[in-house]
């Protein structure tokens, strides 16, 4: 058996290739170019002025604070779930795997809505929170919860297939040789999954910084307080402040491109150490 290798296009192949390139240019490259063109439409000074705005700075800071908490939490969950699923045999594993992937099939708006249903003014726990003087919706906590739900499966689904493929032989050998739990994790498991973990963290981080729908439901859009970067883009755009909107958007687009570059680099260099399903 021989897998097909790419060859120089000829004849009708040019038609297929042309259609593919045109389609990618139209649906992917053109919107990307638009972001940067619109951001610099009135020159570099206007572009950089957008970042002098205290509300923009507050939005950037809030986004970073949300990602700084959401990513480590979901990474810890990913490690825990992958350890459980790949090293042990137990009843209900299939159900657990299905439930871990579930947030991927939720609309972002639903991922925000559920927190309002729990903690909003007329939510299940709304009156209790009110009595205790705790605010979750329209605050950092609500934004964090919505972000965690949206980015929930990212690390787990990179680690689980890889660690399942690696099995438990190395760890079992370590136990037989007298290693403790901490030693096994730091010196046997972690070196085997480091690149996949980084890969998952990268994707999780990009999504956490860029999430819009879920966060928009729970944020309440209080400028300078509960607007994240993507929400600030929306506010500026709806105010017809297009240069500033696209300037902040260009920051997010730049972040996406850096993430993609790092992801592609990881795939090229460490494809053997990433799970097959990671290439999605």
């Amino acid at each position: 058996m021989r897998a097909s290798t790419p060859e120089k296009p000829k004849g009708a192949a040019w038609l297929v290739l042309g259609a593919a390139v045109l389609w990618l240019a139209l649906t992917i490259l053109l919107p990307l170019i638009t972001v940067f063109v619109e951001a610099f439409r009135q020159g570099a000074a206007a572009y950089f002025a957008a970042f002098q705005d205290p509300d923009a700075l507050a939005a950037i800071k809030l986004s970073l604070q949300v990602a700084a908490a959401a990513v480590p939490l979901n990474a810890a969950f990913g490690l825990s779930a992958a350890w459980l699923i790949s090293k042990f045999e137990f009843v209900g594993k299939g159900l657990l795997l299905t439930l871990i992937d579930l947030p991927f099939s939720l609309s972002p708006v639903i991922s925000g809505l559920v927190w309002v249903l729990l903690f909003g003014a007329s939510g299940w726990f709304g009156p209790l929170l009110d009595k205790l003087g705790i605010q979750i919706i329209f605050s950092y906590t609500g934004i964090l919860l919505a972000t965690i739900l949206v980015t929930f499966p990212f690390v787990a689904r990179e680690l689980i297939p890889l660690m399942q493929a690696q099995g438990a032989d190395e760890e079992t050998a370590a136990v037989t040789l007298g290693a403790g739990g901490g030693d096994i994790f730091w010196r046997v498991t972690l070196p085997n999954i480091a690149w996949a973990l980084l890969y998952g963290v990268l994707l999780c981080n990009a999504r956490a910084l860029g999430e819009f729908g879920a966060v928009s439901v729970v944020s309440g859009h209080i400028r300078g307080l509960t607007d994240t970067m993507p929400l600030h883009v929306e506010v500026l755009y709806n105010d017809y402040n297009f240069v500033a909107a696209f300037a902040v958007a260009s920051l997010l687009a730049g972040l996406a491109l850096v993430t993609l570059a790092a992801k592609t680099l990881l795939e090229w260099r460490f494809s053997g150490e990433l799970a097959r399903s990671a290439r999605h």
Partner: protein
Amino acid sequence: MAFSLSLPRLREPSVLPGFWPALGFTVSYLSLIVLIPLAALIARPWEHGGAEFLHTVTDPRVLASLRLSFGAAFLASAINLVMGLITAWALVRYDFPGRRLLDAAVDVPFALPTAVAGIALATLYAPNGWIGSLFAPLGVKIAYTPLGVLIALVAVGLPFIVRSVQPVLQDLDAEVEEAARTLGARRWQTIRQVILPAVAPALVTGFSLAFARAVGEYGSVIFIAGNMPMKSEIAPLLIIIELSQFNYAGAASVGLAMLILSFIALLAINIGQLLFLRRGKR
């Protein structure tokens, strides 16, 4: 632990440490972040009775939004089915300068925040935008119409199809194709009888993923949609409108209706695939 041993094989014995802490943390975190919130979504639509749920989801405006979200998602995924296959084919089969760069670019919609894509598409397809201005003289309005919704969903869905089909095309045995050709099969016959059946399951997977994503898509759509009631309002927006009127049960009803319809649609796609495969085997 003693009680776990007395139960019939709930877990296989293992010498590795950490089963109970990992199980405890995994299940608690999953419950707090996913299960309890979803329980609220499933329970709350019924708090004013089943009739109220039906009344909400059969409201003409809600029905129109569901029709638009599901219809546009289906159409966009169908367009991407064709264009995604062509793109994957070009990336796998042809050697051309910039191939790796284009291959990496396919993932942009995965990484680009939806709000960024949303304002870029709205600007491009507005009547004075680069693409919108080409169609405006023809009397075709794209932005702020259902057509704009379709464009946004097409832009979001492509990578799902390409990334599902690509590995299958890569692993497809080149000799099988050559054999088909030496046996006198025309190019079109080879495609229809050798290649398409091999990639069909991957196409279905990609279609399902793109469809599920498109149904719930919000950020890249609302800027270009125009959000006119009954015309270009998507279902997720209706949830937000219900919430802004403090109608929690109504918002939950629309959300639950979306989930149920998605589930039915994906089930139908999978059953359709099974029937198709069985027919192929006969």
